[in-house]
């Protein structure tokens, strides 16, 4: 069972990624072109998944929506890792006052529920997909900074770092060559389990109308758009949600498998 799930998750993630990357070529129609004479069509040869309330092709919008979702999650991942590594290694290597201040800041960010914090950030930054990405990244980086700081501290006193320092390597070179590689595996485990979580946040905030603006093809927006027709054309809500579910499911399966691979001890604790 378990052996079958991992390849399945890989196939889903890869095909979704391909679908997202190749959306401009794969999508049978323009995702934003409206055609009011072909509203709310059922699935047909021309429109495999039918059309929405403005006559737009649902399949094309789903493919383009994958693009937005994957792009957003990738950007969040990059931001969180960059910020987490920067603050974490800085606090861990510097110690003292710097460490104390940085960790208090982390505490502040960890005190507030992530989605509530993200909502507040969007209030401070303004709406739009970029700000949604920044807000989600800002509400999650502190955990990564904490992890990186802890690992840095545990590494700092190991012999090979002392040797590197004696050999005259700069602090930055030590971090790059000796600290980050060790941390990478742990970060990968933590991040892979968070990808699905972030995807859900992006979808939720888009659904609230805080992300991309309305005509853009995005899964959360598609669900919000379809709300008035929810009772007559439920598939318009069901399909984008199923796309989110499938993607998050695949991410979580991958994350689980990665955790098994890289950190068996974590697995036995959580399961």
């Amino acid at each position, binding site marked *: 069972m378990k052996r079958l799930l991992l390849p399945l998750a890989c196939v889903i993630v890869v095909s979704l990624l391909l679908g997202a990357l190749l959306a401009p070529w794969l999508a049978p129609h323009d995702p934003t072109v409206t055609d009011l004479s072909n509203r709310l069509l059922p699935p047909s040869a021309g429109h495999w998944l039918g059309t929405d309330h403005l006559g737009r092709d649902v399949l094309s919008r789903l493919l383009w929506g994958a693009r937005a979702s994957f792009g957003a999650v990738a950007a969040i991942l990059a931001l969180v890792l960059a910020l987490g590594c920067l603050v974490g290694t800085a606090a861990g290597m510097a110690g003292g006052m710097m460490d104390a201040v940085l960790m208090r800041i982390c*505490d502040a960010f960890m005190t*507030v529920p992530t989605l509530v914090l993200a909502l507040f950030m969007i*209030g401070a930054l303004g709406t739009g997909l970029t700000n949604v990405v920044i807000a989600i990244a800002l509400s999650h980086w502190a955990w990564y900074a904490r992890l990186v700081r802890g690992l840095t501290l545990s590494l700092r006193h190991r012999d090979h770092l002392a040797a590197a320092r004696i050999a005259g390597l700069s602090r930055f070179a030590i971090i790059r060559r000796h600290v980050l590689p060790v941390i990478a595996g742990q970060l990968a485990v933590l991040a892979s389990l968070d990808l699905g979580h972030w995807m859900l946040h992006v979808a939720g905030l888009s659904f609230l109308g805080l992300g991309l603006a309305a005509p853009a093809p995005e899964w959360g927006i598609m669900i919000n758009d379809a709300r008035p027709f929810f009772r007559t054309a439920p598939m318009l809500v069901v399909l984008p949600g199923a796309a*989110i*579910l499938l993607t998050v499911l695949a991410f979580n399966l991958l994350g689980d498998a990665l955790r098994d691979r890289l950190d068996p001890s974590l697995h036995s604790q*959580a399961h």
Partner: protein
Amino acid sequence: MLAFILRRLASLFPLLLVVSFAFFAMLRLGRGDPAMDYLRLAQIPPTDAALVAARTELGLDRPLLVQYFSWLADALRFDLGTSWFTRRPVAEEILLFLPATLQLAGTAMLLTLAIGIPLGVWAALRRDRWPDHLTRVVAFVGVSVPNFWLGFLLVLLFAVTLGWLPAMGREGPASVLLPALATAAMSACVMLRLVRASVLGALGEPHLRFARARGLPGRTLLGRHILLNAMVPPLTAIGLHLGELMGGAMVVETVFGWPGLGRWALLAIGNRDYPVLQGFIIVMTTVFVLCNLLVDIAYAWLDPRIRLRQAA
């Protein structure tokens, strides 16, 4: 125990101070000129003179720290300022909307426990048999479902098709069930897996072997020596779940037209209504932190090792 509670309560103040200042600064330094937003919401043309007047009125010309302490002094008297949009006191609006959100998040918490704990215990006691496999699959799907989408599906099934429960609004005690279920689904699934792991851990405890060897009856073993101990880790996780549920409630409220803080905050986000945003974050943080304090107290009450260490 009282000393423990008081000490924990006292430790909250510096934390809330740091948090509130961090978010105050973020809001002020975040973007653009708050005076512009103020004038826009007040529907005053943003002439230079009007901007200067607004800055003076709002105190934006003073140093950030002075602004913060003036806000803090008011906040300590439960005065969170006035909404730039509705022109009503923020504290009053929060009191108007907070109960609905707390009802939703609280019901969702109860559902999380009511679903997660029994199913988790069941899965653990039937390890590697069908209940374990079934709940594993359900939990895996459950943590991947967008809560707002689940809300629509629940409406489709229970309100539209079956007609058992209301689809929208907050009328009658039954109306909270569907939004609470949508909010709770993910937490319940996480809780289920946690309880399962925790019960499996308790089943392997050496004291259970000695309890069996004394010939204790099954219900004493299960109740006092397995479940009591197995509840400690899930209890400490309740705090984190509360945060997820409060955040989740914000989104789900929109689906069900639930008159809580979510819609109110959404309006403020769109309007860039600074006093409302500031009040929103500080109230949510305070509620969350206080709930976590309650969890800590319950934890100390359940586990004498914590209690005794605190007393020492």
